């Protein structure tokens, strides 16, 4: 069957997958070789791996709570979860966007290389662990050990950050509006310059949040762990 043109597909209603009647495997098989551009997933009931591995520019609306690894490895998809998401939402995302209307569990956006992850609620521990270029905007707070070993990308936290923020961070820019429990090893506060205010404004706009960028503080790497030093003694 020939794929529909984008205009033809847009004119149609979303294709509905009711997970009371079909399986996640069937859903993901369709999303990997889409015959439409818009999908709606009903009764997700916290199922794992919903919409993992999307390659194409399609819209997927998950009407309820998603389990682990939702929209993992996303390439061009635009995924919205109308509920909470389990561990590793948008894990290793390459591009595209993922929006979680509720809260996200641990390791949101882990190892993500690009794209935008928006969590309207709060994210649990290790949000943005080992992030490698993804942008993550969290409307609420993030748990302990967020941005652990972050390498590139931006993490915006409109609420508070838990203990150990940015531990062993390489690069990546972290913006926090509320309080920070403690900073992890080699993570330091840095001045919020004009270019940071500008990029923060763009990220908040993209996420649909209207906080003033000037209310945020910036954190990043002190670059003290890049090399061994004489302080480590001789062995």
């Amino acid at each position, binding site marked *: 069957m020939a794929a529909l043109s984008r205009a033809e597909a847009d004119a149609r209603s979303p294709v509905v997958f009711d997970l009371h009647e079909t399986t996640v495997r069937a859903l993901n098989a369709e999303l990997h070789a889409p015959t439409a551009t818009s999908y709606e997933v009903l009764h997700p009931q*916290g199922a794992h791996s919903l919409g993992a591995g999307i390659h194409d520019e399609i819209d997927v609306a998950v009407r309820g709570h998603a389990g682990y690894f939702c929209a993992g490895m996303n390439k061009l998809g635009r995924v919205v979860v109308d509920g909470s998401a*389990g561990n590793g939402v948008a894990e290793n995302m390459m591009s595209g966007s993922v929006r979680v209307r509720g809260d996200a569990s641990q390791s949101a956006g882990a190892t993500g290389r690009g794209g935008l992850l928006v969590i309207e609620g709060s994210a649990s521990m290790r949000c943005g662990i080992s992030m490698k270029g993804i942008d993550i905007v969290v409307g609420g707070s993030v748990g302990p050990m967020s941005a652990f070993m972050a390498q590139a990308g931006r993490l915006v936290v409109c609420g508070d950050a838990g203990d150990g923020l940015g531990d062993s961070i390489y690069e990546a820019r972290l913006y926090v509006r509320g309080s920070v429990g403690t900073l992890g090893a080699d993570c330091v506060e840095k001045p919020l310059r004009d270019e940071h205010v500008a990029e923060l404004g763009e990220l908040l706009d993209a996420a649909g949040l209207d906080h003033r960028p000037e209310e945020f503080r910036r954190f990043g790497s002190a670059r003290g762990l890049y090399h061994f030093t004489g302080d480590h003694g001789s062995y």
Partner: protein
Amino acid sequence: MCGIIGLHLRDPELAPMLGRLLDDMLCGVSERGPDSVGIAVYGDGERNPEGHSAVSVLRAPGDLAASAGALLPGTPTVTAQVAGDTTVLSAPVGVEALTAAVAAAAPEALVVGSGNDLVVYKGAGHPQDLARTYGLREVSGWQGVAHTRMATESAINPEGCHPYSVGADQCLVHNGSFSNHATIRRELERQGVTFDSENDSEVGARFVAACLAEGDDLEKALLRLGETFDGFYTLLVTTADGFAVVRDEIACKPAVIAEHPRWVAMASEFRALADLPGIDEARVFEPDPGKVYAWQR
């Protein structure tokens, strides 16, 4: 992997629904532990009537009710309910007396739970099949916990199921592994504590039971556990009036808590909580590392 669920009801009007709520929650963690299950319920007046105690036993001989009853003063009637591998004996006597009579009448049997309010079931098989065997949906009461097991370090059998219930009306379920349990086991053995298995989680349960026996409350006992034990853990511990959750300082093992005016619930994954009445109004959060969250009846 393994899955945990726990439900502590604050609203007595929900008591008749306890079993149905637990069964629905169990569905949400069955995939995490499809090989065996253990379930503990508190406050079911039919299974453990007022003024009685109950002892849950594996490997029970068929005549255990009669032989245990004959050893009790006044030879009261001991009733036996057989549910799969588990036999629940109840009698209008104290829990220590009933436990001692069971042990004397059937030394080969293994007591896996005892209390004035508690009934424990354990078995190998799919959790939802076993829930039917135990009549879980018909359970009433005020508190329940369950553990679905994906065995990694020991055999799939009823003895390996959680909860570990080593003190009257106490239960401990564990997702994770303790790494220094052998050292702590030797210390407890020196203090006279005896063990039923080589399992690391049993050491945790015996440690908590010893702390509670010394007068600690649940929160203090679990803080002491955190100071003493090394390894990975999410623990749910329940007592005759308490419900507590704690995770280790790295907190790799999942846990979600939902607190509602009518109930407090905990599960490995949110999907196990998704159908609880009023979940949309509940405060849902993941417990912080190393922090004890405790509720009392």
